[in-house]
């Protein structure tokens, strides 16, 4: 028994057999294969680069004419040729941050439940259902927001908020049902599957020995789970940032429920707009060249924001994998 296992290990360490030499020259299939794959892989980078170049080209008149005013102005008046991105950047960041705030606690609880508390087979089934949520087209969420959530907010939630929390600027105004709050709730539901399923995977990937060690040291079940969650924390942060990326770029559902106005308002009950929604709204009929160019600049800035968020997430995921290997080795 011992001998066979050692043999197997030795076999594993043995050098790979040399590949059969292929015909040299252009028709070398290995080389062709490699060249074809390289070309396909490079084309992805070329497409991204071309997109950036094209957005820069489109945004050039706005960059030239509007300069830094574009970054700080709160005016968006296509008639007067005044364009400022502040209301849209605020709308994008506010709706996404609020969505995260609403989505994170229940999603995390769901992930812990699915990974730790429920029987594995049932956990997989439930996780499958939650992942289904992620594949629902965003326009369906938008329709739900307009026809189900908005009346509910208007008749029940918002009047209550105004009556009891109306002293806060956040909850002042008329209960119309559409606006920042509606958008944030719809976004929260849209991003929670991402948080739940990635967090669950990461929790499942933490070594069982961690949990066993905690239990062996006399921890309660809750304390053992806390140890696991602690080990998985970097990965969970990565999941949250991926979800944030989705929230930042979400267009259709937000456009349908946010109310679409370029006025800044502290109230969550008031309508707003996001960077993605203003592009979706105004792009097709932007006849004035400066207007079109300003929309290109919004797209460029949205691209920059998304790039930063995605890059950050990638770094975190790398960090998590490194961390997990360390944890695994220590265990």
């Amino acid at each position, binding site marked *: 028994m011992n001998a066979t296992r050692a043999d197997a290990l030795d076999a594993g360490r043995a050098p790979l057999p040399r590949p059969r030499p292929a015909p040299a020259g252009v028709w070398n299939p290995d080389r062709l294969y490699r060249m074809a794959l390289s070309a396909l892989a490079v084309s992805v980078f070329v497409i991204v680069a071309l997109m950036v170049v094209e957005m820069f080209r489109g945004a050039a008149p706005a960059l030239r004419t509007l300069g830094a005013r574009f970054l700080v102005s709160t005016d968006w008046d296509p008639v007067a040729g005044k364009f400022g991105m502040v209301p849209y950047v605020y709308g994008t960041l506010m709706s996404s941050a609020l969505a995260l705030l609403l989505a994170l606690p229940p999603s995390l609880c769901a992930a812990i439940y699915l990974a730790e508390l429920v029987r594995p087979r049932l956990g997989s089934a439930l996780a499958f259902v939650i992942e289904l949520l992620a594949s629902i087209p965003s326009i369906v969420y938008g329709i739900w927001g307009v*026809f189900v959530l908005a009346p509910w907010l208007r008749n029940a939630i918002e009047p209550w908020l105004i009556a009891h929390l109306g002293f806060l600027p956040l909850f002042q105004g008329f209960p119309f049902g559409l606006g920042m709050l509606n958008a944030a709730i719809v976004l929260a539901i849209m991003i929670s599957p991402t948080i739940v399923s990635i967090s669950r995977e990461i929790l499942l990937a933490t070594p069982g020995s961690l949990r066993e060690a905690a239990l062996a040291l006399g921890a309660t079940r809750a304390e053992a789970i806390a140890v696991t969650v602690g080990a998985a924390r970097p990965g969970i942060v990565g999941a949250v940032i991926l979800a944030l990326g989705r929230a930042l770029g*979400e267009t259709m559902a937000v456009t349908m429920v946010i109310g*679409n106005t370029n006025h800044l308002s502290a109230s969550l009950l008031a309508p707003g707009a996001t960077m993605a929604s203003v592009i979706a*709204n105004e*792009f*097709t009929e932007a*006849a004035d060249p400066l*207007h079109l160019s300003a929309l290109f600049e919004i797209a460029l800035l949205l691209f920059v924001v998304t790039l930063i968020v995605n890059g950050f997430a990638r770094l975190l995921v790398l960090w998590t994998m490194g961390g997990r290997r360390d944890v695994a080795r220590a265990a």
Partner: protein
Amino acid sequence: MKSILHPRSLAILAALALAAPATAQTLTGAGATFPYPIYSKWFDVYKQKTGIEINYQSIGSGAGIQQVKAGTVDFGASDAALSNDRLKEMPRKVVHFPTVGGALALAYNLPNFAGPLKLTPQIITGIYMGKITTWNDKTIAAANPGVTMPAAPILAVHRSDGSGTTNIFTTYLSAVSGEWKELVGANTAVSWPSGVGGKGNDGVSGVVSQTPGAIGYVELAYAKQNKLAVAQVQNKAGKFVEPSLESTVAAVGAAATELAKDPRTPIVNGNGPDVYPIAGLTFLLVYQDQKDAAKGRALADFIQWAIHDGQELAASLDYARLPDAVVKVDEATLRSLTANGKPLLASR
């Protein structure tokens, strides 16, 4: 990121660009979405009649104008006439052909209100300015004698997407209110002083039908097909007029003299007792001098057909047909078309 520059969108655009075969019997056009239902009907009927195929992409007026400028289409379509500045930016002279008219209806949602709601230009401006905020405002009560208006707050709903509809509506508000003209102006997208935006006719009517106290402007055809409660609007003659095909035709007819001088003249707030004041025309944009004589002739023949026989199809799709005076304007413009300097329709 789900922007329009998503690689998938680019791939679709590329596929569309490749899909248009370039034969003399095919015309391509691009632009406005508002007249798309009647245009696609026209192209369909015209193809059965003559075999000439017309590919039309309803990508929005702004994008249509861009394509005309770039010379990638045989004709463009726009709900807003080109300003003198925009015309100067074109490489060659572009002429406008009004094709059909349309009106906007102000749809409202007032539960337990028998109606019809009567609105004056001052009330409409006040609501969209954010100055009239409740339905029992005394200016609304004065225009609706004998009915008790509810004390509900008003939600002014506008189109969030840039659209010809918004252009007609803001042109109307600019025509009836100096303050609106000064502070907001007219365009396919404006900086709205108040209210919420819904995307598309369905977005606006969705918000209106969902929100008690809401009012919003939608295309007449859309309001009729969805049986929305619509307001009567006081016209220049002081009469409250229901939006309908007849009152829209009257609006186009009332502006015939000005349209003869310049087909781009807005027809909002027209004179006449039966005129519905919030109406507009939609245009085909064509280069006056065509590079390709065969294509130019095919295009001129189509427009000739559209402004005569094609008009019979307009009412079935809730568009207002052109009055004879405007058809004459189009005929005159048609006769001015040339191909490389030679008149296109000289042989007739």
